[in-house]
């Protein structure tokens, strides 16, 4: 187990069967196609592919536009989990085939949707214009003087306009100049008074009223009274809104009914695009194409079998990877260790010379998470939620791994919680020890777990050296290193362990292993000078023990997380007990506090435990033996963005 062994694969076939081979390989999803060297690219081939790609991209753009319009008019509502995993429409294989048969219908519907949407936006603009016009005319609604009368008579001038505040100043000024006038107030809007002014035509009149803040205004109406025109505008607005309503409804209905169709086609074109992009990696001759890539060694037989059923002439060759060749990495572990692959994949894929650490971090992550969460109640709730999600939700392999990881982690918390007797921070029985009463012990266990894990890491690192045939490195660098660390620990801790009498022996042992470590660094260097120069480096190795013990101390976070969660939980329980005794509906408050408080505490602790447990693996544990840097295996396969085929669920 661990890193899947790969085989290099070469496939030759006739160019006219190329797409059949490619789509079969894509359906299989087992072969990664390596790109060919740039000097092998034939311009005609790549021009043809570019042409096909543009065509596909146009289709994709069209369908995404339709889907975006659907989303605007009838948005899908993802629940909290779907926000993480993404929303998928679940359809069966038959449904998919039925949809794919309706290619013409899609184009027709595309046009219909675009048509509706364009009409909708232009009507929205019309509505905006109407609204602006209506607000502008609203102050003149009461004016019953028709448009044709506004120019007045030879003697009487008619002015429409507004002044700020009231008309007193205007009236006074006109009266002072003895100009006969008559003013009709139409009402006040936004602190301006709107009016119609009848004036005897006089030279100074207009200037006087302008000085008093009169702003003339001509409502833009074709004929008749403002009120009648306003009514026609409002009526038109009503019509536009009604039409908008019908259009919106039409698009909504289309969205509800046809969304899966468009999603299916989006994925269809998307997968075709993947196929064309894979095509770019092929080597073309006059009549023959060649394909090079990687396949999992176990699956080689199956690939051969499936390709032979196609009935086209071909030549297939497998070989083991050569030394120095870059091999893509896929992880495969036993069922129990598989969820922990999610942690490794989130960090980095192992390099081809390394081992897959999934199985190694498994038990430690389980314990770390258990200690950090530390409550059987919380752990059980977490495991139950994830179990339900796993069975009710449609999830991709990665999501499933994550859900299983959280189930295992939750069970870790159940284990620790039961041992320390903590169920929703209540202690119904006498556990091995109580986290809140004896935090020192919890700290020691945390550090002990850390020490153990880092020892295991160092041993794994030694094992990797041995596997590569570097026995001497394993003994000189890792073996003495472990002895040295153990010596240091025993020298300091002997009295506590009741071995005080041997302290001196331990000290001598430590000094000897330290000397051996320095010697180990000198080993293999040529010439006296180089050997002397290697001594400071060896001394630095000894200094690295500081780093090692600070890594161990980093595990104290497990105690802090477990403790703060437990104390917080018991504070919540204290409030619960306090309100329980209250007369009347005290019990109700009590239950609300219990549910709400523990939900909050659990949420924060689940998050904190995940973050810190994974950090301990990434920084402290991986630091001892794991670097990562492998390239993940990415076979040509069918990738659905929007839909989820029910069949996939069983595979």
């Amino acid at each position, binding site marked *: 187990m661990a890193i899947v062994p790969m085989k290099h694969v070469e496939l030759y076939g006739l160019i006219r069967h190329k797409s059949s081979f490619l789509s079969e390989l894509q359906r299989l999803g087992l072969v990664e196609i390596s790109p060919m060297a740039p000097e092998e690219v034939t311009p005609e081939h790549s021009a043809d592919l570019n042409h096909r790609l543009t065509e596909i991209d146009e289709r994709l753009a069209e369908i995404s536009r339709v889907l975006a319009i659907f989303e605007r008019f009838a948005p899908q509502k993802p629940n909290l989990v779907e926000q993480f995993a993404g929303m998928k429409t679940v359809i069966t294989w038959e449904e998919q085939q039925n949809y794919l048969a309706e290619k013409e219908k899609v184009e027709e519907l595309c046009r219909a949707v675009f048509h509706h949407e364009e009409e909708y936006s232009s009507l929205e603009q019309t509505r905006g214009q109407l609204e602006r016009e209506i607000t502008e005319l609203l102050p003149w609604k009461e004016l019953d003087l028709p448009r044709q009368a506004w120019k007045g008579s030879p003697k009487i001038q008619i002015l429409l306009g507004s002044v700020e505040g009231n008309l007193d100043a205007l009236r006074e000024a006109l009266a002072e100049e003895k100009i006969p006038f008559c003013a009709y107030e139409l009402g006040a809007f936004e602190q301006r008074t709107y009016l119609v002014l009848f004036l005897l035509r006089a030279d100074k009149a207009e200037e006087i009223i302008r000085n008093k803040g009169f702003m003339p205004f001509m409502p833009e109406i074709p004929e008749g009274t403002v009120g009648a025109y306003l009514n026609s505008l409002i009526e038109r607005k009503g019509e536009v809104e009604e039409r908008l309503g019908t259009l919106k409804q039409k698009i909504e209905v289309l969205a509800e009914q046809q969304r899966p169709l468009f999603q299916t086609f989006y994925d269809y074109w998307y997968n075709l695009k993947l196929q064309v992009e894979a095509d770019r990696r092929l080597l073309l001759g006059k009549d023959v194409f060649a394909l090079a890539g990687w396949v999992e060694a176990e699956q080689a037989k199956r690939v051969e079998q499936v390709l032979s059923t196609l009935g086209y002439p071909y030549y297939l060759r497998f070989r083991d990877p050569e030394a120095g060749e870059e091999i893509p990495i896929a992880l495969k572990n036993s069922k129990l260790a598989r969820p922990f692959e999610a942690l490794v994949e989130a960090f980095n894929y192992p390099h081809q010379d390394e081992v897959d650490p999934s199985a190694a971090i498994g038990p430690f992550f389980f314990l770390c998470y258990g200690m950090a969460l530390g409550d059987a109640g919380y752990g059980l709730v977490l495991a139950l939620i994830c179990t339900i999600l796993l069975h009710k939700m449609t999830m991709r392999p990665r999501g499933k791994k994550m859900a299983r990881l959280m189930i295992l982690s939750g069970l870790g918390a159940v284990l620790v919680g039961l041992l320390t007797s903590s169920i929703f921070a209540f202690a119904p029985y006498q556990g091995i020890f109580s986290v809140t009463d004896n935090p020192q012990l919890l700290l020691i266990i945390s550090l002990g777990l850390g020490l153990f894990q880092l020892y295991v890491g160092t041993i794994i690192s030694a094992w990797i050296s041995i596997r590569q045939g570097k026995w001497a490195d394993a003994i000189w660098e890792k073996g003495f290193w472990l002895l040295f660390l153990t010596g240091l620990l025993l020298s300091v801790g002997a009295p506590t362990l009741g071995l005080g009498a041997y302290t001196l022996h331990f000290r001598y042992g430590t000094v000897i292993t330290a000397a051996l470590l320095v010697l180990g660094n000198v080993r293999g260097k040529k010439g006296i000078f180089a050997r002397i120069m290697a001594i400071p480096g060896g001394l630095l190795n000894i200094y690295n023990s500081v780093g090692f013990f600070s890594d161990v101390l980093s595990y104290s976070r497990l105690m802090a*997380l477990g403790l703060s969660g437990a104390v917080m939980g018991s504070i919540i329980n204290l409030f619960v007990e306090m309100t329980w005794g209250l007369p009347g509906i005290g019990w109700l408050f009590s239950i609300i506090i219990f549910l709400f408080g523990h939900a909050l505490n659990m949420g924060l602790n689940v998050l904190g435990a995940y*973050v810190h447990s994974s950090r301990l693996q990434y*920084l402290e544990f991986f630091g001892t033996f794991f670097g990562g840097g492998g390239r993940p295996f990415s076979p040509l396969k069918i990738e659905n963005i929007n839909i989820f085929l029910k069949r996939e669920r069983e595979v």
Partner: protein
Amino acid sequence: MELGALYVYLGVTIAVLFSGFGSAYGVGTAGKVSAGVVTEDPKKFGQTLILTALPGTQGIYGFVIGMLMVFKLTAAAGPIPIETGLQFLVAGVPIGLVGCLSAILQGKVAAAGVGIVAKRPEEASKGIVYAGLVETYAILAFIISFFLLNAITI
């Protein structure tokens, strides 16, 4: 009130006040950015929520220390000597100050992590780990505050 008890009060205040202030600030920083991302894409609420909640833990550590001090004070029989009161005060300082600063800085890292959620949602867990790294120091301070408090005998 005797001076000893007053010092205990001060210790509680330092632990709760500063760490709470820092957490509020940190959550605020991350929350602002998250809200910006959600206006563009409401589907990212869940992931941004996690990053926004991360700087909130310091406030909880401070609160736990403060609450433990209060329990210890109420359990004490008789007046609190000034020296003991000062011990309480000092015990509150690590989580108060480190909690405050680390929460503010963690908020900034979380806000940057929200950027990862916006552009490459599949890598969001890395942003969460980065923000988690800052918390280490608040945890160390919490442990010290806790053991200082535990060492006080009344």
